[in-house]
């Protein structure tokens, strides 16, 4: 299977921002996949598997997070992360 690397910039539309439950869900999604995933905001790069590091991004509503994924299932993992940043958990902090 070919190795693919994808970068996608996602605007955080969850009214609570990138909060704890979203970070847990992102890390769980990344851990389920095989892709190597990095989240980037401003100059800060953190591994997608680490909740404690994802939360240090402080991504507020309306801000953008760049996600880089490489590996055979990179696109699938990105597709699973994108709705999480859009506020899958609804209006909650």
């Amino acid at each position, binding site marked *: 299977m070919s190795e693919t690397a994808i970068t996608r910039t996602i605007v955080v539309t969850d009214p609570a921002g990138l909060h704890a439950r979203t970070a847990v869900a992102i890390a769980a999604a990344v851990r389920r996949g095989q892709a190597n995933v990095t989240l980037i905001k401003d100059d800060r790069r953190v591994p997608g598997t680490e909740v404690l590091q994802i*939360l240090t991004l402080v991504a507020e509503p309306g801000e953008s997070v760049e996600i880089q994924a490489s590996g055979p299932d990179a696109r699938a993992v990105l597709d699973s992360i994108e709705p999480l940043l859009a506020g899958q958990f609804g209006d*909650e902090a």
Partner: protein
Amino acid sequence: MKFADFICSEAILAQLSAQDKETAIREMVQSLCSAGKIEQDEFESIVKAILKREELGSTGIGRGVAVPHTKHPSVNQLVGTVAVSPEGVDFASLDGEVVHLFFLLISPPDRPGDHLRALENISRQLRDDTFCRFLKQSKTIEDIKTILVEADNNQFAS
């Protein structure tokens, strides 16, 4: 944001007795009531809001830590407490570990940024193994207060 900005030191619990998620949350919210940070009339409403959000997904973020939280209109600024459970509580955490350290946060509905900055501070400090270990080994409220002050003075994570 520093711990002193949102942790109510009068509500810190060094020996959480609860053995399940709901009882742990009730103990911490009651502690904030007793400290005068939230109204007793709002107790059930706040507990239910936190439990409802836990149903959506656990706030057990791994490394034996959970950050149960909710937005609630009865507070006009972010309030929080810290609790240590020597026995550990099953919180359905990401890594399956029981939770020994709790940071419970209640924030006003219109201030998501404050909540995120509090989470950033908690997460940054928790990445330091020494901070994490010292807090889990705390036996008294004074121990916990001292560790939080040291963290605020940048003696752990940078």
